[in-house]
């Protein structure tokens, strides 16, 4: 007997075409190829067929099975692809919607600049030493060659407290370190300082960074060389320094250090008030008396010291025009310093 193979295949195709998804398709497939399916039923008819026709019949059934398997395999592939397409279409998101992340905070600009300064000088071999914020007269003034009736005391308006004073300068750290440690010394002393001064451009509290180098044969040339390195690292590769005479009781000679204006490159602009230079720090060769006060022999050792206002550097670096912004702690200000 001949199997109506093509009819069965057509019938299967028709049944499969109405299957909506791969699950329905599977059910159709089982109607033909499953245990109770039509092809299986055909196989079961084998025993009713004459012996001599069996091989041919078997061949035909197997051929039918193969055809159907191929048919369903291709239909399954199509169905899966359709379903995937549908799923993908359904899972479409608006990629322009905001992402989710944990909003980070930030360090204060003074801390950022302080870290940067420490980075620069640590690379040159400076250790970091922090002295107390409440000092006594000796460390803040006397040991720094500013005895009681010295006119330089009028340069800084000092807050006094019972038993001491609020340090007016981180220079006090020079003395405390040199009492503990003998040269060679390369030290940075950052921290809060206080002056009785509160107006548009002065805060009663601000931060300074003191630097001190004491070793054999240190000269003013070394000071300038180090400051050149510093301003290049801090401001720009083209930055230059200019020294000009000044006065601090604890250095001799004393200098003010100007840096070429990074905003205009020295041509003159509003930031540098048309001069091309910006005053950034005070410095000088350590006064022999200061070394003597710390038990360091000034004939054997010499050194230089420098001190700068961290707020001032931050204001120059970021273009902050009002020192008060640094202590208002407005989050709209602070969140600009994520780095």
């Amino acid at each position, binding site marked *: 007997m001949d199997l109506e193979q093509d009819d069965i295949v057509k019938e299967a195709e028709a049944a499969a075409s109405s299957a909506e998804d791969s699950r329905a398709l599977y059910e159709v497939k089982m109607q033909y190829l499953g245990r109770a399916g039509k092809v299986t039923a055909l196989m079961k008819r084998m025993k009713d067929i004459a012996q001599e026709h069996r091989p041919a019949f078997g061949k035909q059934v197997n051929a039918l099975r193969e055809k159907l398997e191929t048919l369903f395999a291709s239909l399954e592939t199509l169905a899966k692809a359709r379903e995937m397409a549908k799923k993908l279409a359904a899972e479409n998101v608006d990629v322009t919607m905001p992402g989710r992340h944990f909003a980070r905070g930030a360090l204060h600009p003074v801390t950022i600049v302080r870290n940067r300064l420490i980075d620069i000088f640590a690379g040159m071999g400076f250790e970091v030493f922090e002295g107390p914020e*409440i000092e006594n007269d000796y460390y803040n003034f006397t040991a720094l060659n500013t005895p009681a009736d010295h006119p330089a005391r009028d340069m800084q308006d000092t807050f006094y407290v019972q038993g001491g004073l609020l340090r007016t300068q981180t220079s006090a750290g020079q003395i405390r370190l040199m009492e503990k440690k003998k040269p060679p010394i390369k030290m940075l002393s950052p921290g809060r300082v206080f002056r009785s001064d509160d107006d548009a451009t002065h805060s009663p509290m601000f931060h300074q960074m003191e630097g001190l180098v004491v070793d054999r044969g240190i000269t003013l040339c070394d000071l300038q060389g180090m400051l050149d390195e510093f301003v290049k690292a801090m401001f720009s590769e083209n930055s230059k320094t200019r020294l000009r005479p000044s006065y601090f009781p604890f250095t001799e000679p004393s200098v003010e250090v100007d840096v070429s204006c990074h905003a205009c490159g020295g041509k003159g602009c509003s930031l540098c008030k048309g001069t091309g230079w910006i005053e950034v720090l005070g410095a000088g060769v350590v006064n022999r008396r200061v070394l003597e006060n710390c038990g360091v022999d000034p004939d054997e050792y010499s050194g230089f010291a420098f001190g700068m206002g961290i707020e001032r550097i931050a204001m120059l670096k970021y273009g902050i025009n009002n020192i008060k912004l640094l202590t208002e702690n407005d989050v709209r200000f602070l969140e600009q310093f994520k780095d």
Partner: protein
Amino acid sequence: MKVPFSWLKEFVDIDITAEQLQEKLFSCGFEVEELIPLGRDVENVAVGRILKCEKHPDADRLTVCEVDCGDKGKKQIVTAATNVFEGALVPVALDGATVLHEGGIQKIKAGKLRGVLSEGMFCSGEELGITDDFYDGAEVNGILILKEGDAAEGADIRPAVGLDDYIFDIAVTANRPDCQSVFGMAREVAAILQKPLKAPDFSHGAAKTNVKIPVEVQEPALCPRYIGHYVSGVKVGTSPQWMRRRLALCGIRGISDIVDITNYVLLELGQPMHAFDRNFLHGDKIIVRRAEEGEKIVTLDEKEFSLHRENLLICDAERPVALAGVMGGLNSEIKPETTEVFFEAASFARDSVRKTARALGQRSDSSARFEKGVEPVWSPARGMERALHLVEELGCGVVTAFGADVAAAAPVQKIIRTTYAKLDAVLGIEVPRETTRAILTRLGFAVRGEGDALEAAVPPWRDDVEGYPDLAEEVIRSYGYEHIVPTFLKTAAVTHGGLTSAQKRELKFKQTLANEGYFEACNYSFYSPKDFDLLRLPADAPERNAVKILNPIGEDLSVMRTILAPSMLANVVRNVRRGNENGRLFELANVYAPAVGDELPAEHKKAVLALWGEGDFFDLKGAIEAIAEAFSLKLSYARVALPFLHPGVSAKVMMGEKEVGFLGQLHPAIAEELALERKVFLAELDYAALSRKFAAEIDYKGLPKFPDAQRDLAVVVKEETTCAEVEACILRACKAAKRAELFDVYRDLRLGAGKKSMAFRITFAAGEKPLDADALDGFFNKIVGNLKHNLGAELR
């Protein structure tokens, strides 16, 4: 300090412009804070001669003048002034000119006045910005009438009335009191320009006299030098124009010739002077002594002061006649009828004058000079000579032969013996010896020495020069800092730099909080005692025991912080008022405790955190947990009652048995007081205590042989049972349980009233053999049993 350009030129031939000199002074250490061109606001005002005056045809009060303005042409000027006359020489503001008017600048334009053209305006002294001290007649009511010969028609008015000048306002550093005068600056200018310095005329006569006014200095330490001189035949009058003008340029009004001379010497040489009316010096004697407690003096400005022992007085035989270095007494002041004068030129200790001036709130040009320092050798002697010379020059008295001069010590010539090499070693460059020598010589040092040896005799006015580094500075500031060649520590030893581990951890602490979304704040170290009240701290709270600033700017900044929370709260309030509805802030800073014994007040680092708007108690707690995780700290939390925190939403932070901080919601009552609508959460941690327990080194342990296992457990407990209690009970029940983490709390009436269900995920560590189901069941049952026994918990 104000220095007129024209006065400087009397001592040095200055052949550069004022602007050029400003730059040179700057590079030598004298910052000119302001270079003020006089008459800069008086432009296009010419000298004119009135040829004809006629009445205005339509206005009785106006006069129409024809004026010859030389090369500017003939002008018709209509004026309301009544003091003009034909032939008068007057200032004419031409069309487009600017003059001063009521504190501002007025532009003059040609125009018609009642129908008659006026091609400008006549000027008064006030409109030119001058007083009688600049030009006699400047203060008349009407137009300034110039003196014949003072100016030609058509010339710029400014030179004629002394407005062609500059004032240098110079910032003199504290080490250079010798430059607090015109002549002192002239010395520097002469050295800078390498020009000769012309000294003022110090010569004077010495007429015979029988008068003797001996001086007795009882306090030589406070008055190292006192020079007095007797001048007879005084006729008090007005000092000449040139003198009054110079005083005016420096901001001092002319008073009378004798008084003007004292002020002139003060400005010119920096030596404060005083003139006593000899007829009111009782007993012809001067005594310099300390005031008696409560002794009184009335100064020239008619103020009475009650004095103390630290105030130094100049007295006659009977009573105080001057507050030394500050101001003369009213009882011996120079009056128009004064006929005999006793001049004083002294040196008083700067600290003494400063204390007196400050304590009494009485300051003067003299006290300002003495506070900066007036050396006893050169200045008083030259000051007196100069004053006596001026008396003769002005013809206002007869300089007698009687002078008193009391010096505490004989002047010592200071000589610095050093080498050129030492100076070079400070600078790091080799300055040619002849250059060094020339610079020091120009600055008044007498330089000697052969070869490398350098011997410099310090001029008496340079009290500040003490050793060779000072000489090095003198050399380099003249030679020029541009000669310094940058080097990089050629001779220095290599040192190890960087932060200490404690400093690194502090930074890590800050960074951890920043990573948790907190912004670092920076607040002043002081605040108001009222901040303690805001926090409702009781009167005996330890936080109220703060270090007080003895001289605060105001009460708002008068106590050193003992707790950081108030600053943080102020930050939150400011942010909220500015519309920043959410935020997270932290600060790591010192608090301060009052001094004990001779110690300095103690400093102690604390950290404060604030969170407002979005987030709750557990967000804030999460930040503290992040710190604990970052530094391997074991912290626990327990309820706490603090006056400024919500009693139900606040905890103390414990590290072992030690309380190391608090966290919680700001008390709603305080929030209401501060108009904070959204919740604020605050935490404060004792950083110093925490940091002592920061894990020092990474503590590595080998990996376990067998994996951990987890079991979830839900128990029903009483509402008041805390998470910490259940957790502790679980961990105590079973050694293998290494963590018990709460992941759910569930409340339902079916659980029973006042009950809640808490679900924990328990992690068990395997020991020497893997954890099998039987072992875990055993652990689990033991835990359930303990929970039931200790907390009455039921397995859910």
